């Protein structure tokens, strides 16, 4: 999936996260993660994000994440929502989202 425009999903409320995606000027994939629980869960969150992006076949883009202690299921949902919005994707392949 190709990110063709900047997009935003999620909120900054507790137990949620905000995900911003933007096209990458040099066609690289960069994930910037900030989290209130980065020390304990940084690696875990990063794994969930990377896995979610890989299943959506996102190969390039700037992904900025502000995590407020969200569960894995919320992380997946918000990353997917931001990517689908940024890719202007109308047809959803649910198999890739589960």
């Amino acid at each position, binding site marked *: 999936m190709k990110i063709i425009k900047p*997009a935003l999903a999620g909120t*900054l409320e507790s137990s949620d996260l905000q995900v911003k995606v933007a096209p990458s000027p040099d066609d690289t994939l960069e994930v*910037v993660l900030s989290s209130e629980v980065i020390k304990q869960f940084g690696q875990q969150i990063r794994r969930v994000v990377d896995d979610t992006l890989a299943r959506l076949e996102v190969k390039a883009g700037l992904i900025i994440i502000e995590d407020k202690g969200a569960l894995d299921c919320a992380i997946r949902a918000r990353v997917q929502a931001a990517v689908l919005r940024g890719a202007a994707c109308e047809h959803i392949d649910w198999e890739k989202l589960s």
Partner: protein
Amino acid sequence: MSETMEFDTVSPASQPEALAAIRQLLADCQLELDSKIDVFVVVYRQGSLIACAGLSGNIIKCVAIAPQWRGESLSLQLVNEVVQIAAERGHFHLFLYTKPENQRFFTGCGFYTLVEVPGHVVLMENTPVGIQHYCQRLRMLRQPSNKTGCIVMNANPFTLGHRYLAEQAAAACDWLHVFVVREDVSFFPYAQRYELVTQGLGGIPNLTVHHGSEYMISRATFPSYFLKDKGIVDSCHTAIDLLLFRDYIAPALGISHRFIGTEPFCPVTNKYNEDMKQWLQHAHCPAPAIEVVELSRHVRNGQPVSASRVRRLLSRQDFNAIQALVPPSTLQLLLSEYAAEPAPALERYG
């Protein structure tokens, strides 16, 4: 409880009647109503206004919450809402001005401090990598040089004065970086100004012309620069703009000298030049000091050459007088795009 609070938006242009309450709330919080707000996010409780946040382009300002409703929950919802509204309007990269004491709260909302004028104001942006990425790109354009100069010009339009300044600066340095102010609020659109600078500086071997950015004399870093006509100069804003230059842009390119023309006419530019010496050179700051070099204006026919003079002559369609002040590339553009009559042959102005 949040269920009793109602969020809405107010567009100052189409709902002037709703502004009275906003103005009052801002006044209660020692803030002024900014005339450039495109849209306000407002929060009502039982019919009365308890919070607001304004959006001016991609800049969040005029954020106020009635004292009895301050607290993480409402402020967070307010910021969240304004960020969403900005996204709907196509603004994803946001700037925010706030008082230094609110910095921590906004950090929790995904905003990152760019610069602080201690005790006065903080400029933040909503990305942890915005200016870092910008500086990375600048670093790739760095040149081997012991003495590296910089000029930031609006070039509205490019004149022989700009050419003279750049020639002098380039001669005094190993390499010169020229930035063109990117904000599109001047008489001449950015694309034209950039083009004229590139053409007008042709033949000077040791310089690079750069596109300007939001981090340099933009509506975000320096709102009052674009209110020149009103003669308003806010020294906090010049400090913000200049500290951004000293802390981020100059180190990325290794800039050690900044060149400016003396400005006898324009109070804003004049004040800016004075502030430049203070913030780039004298102010205590972890980033290295930058020497500010003032060069006196290029004079033609006994009068200093300035872009504002060219614009005045253009409004009178006095191309004969303009011809003496601008290089051929600028003259050609003025004739082809801005002449009231069908463009006379360029040869007439040799």
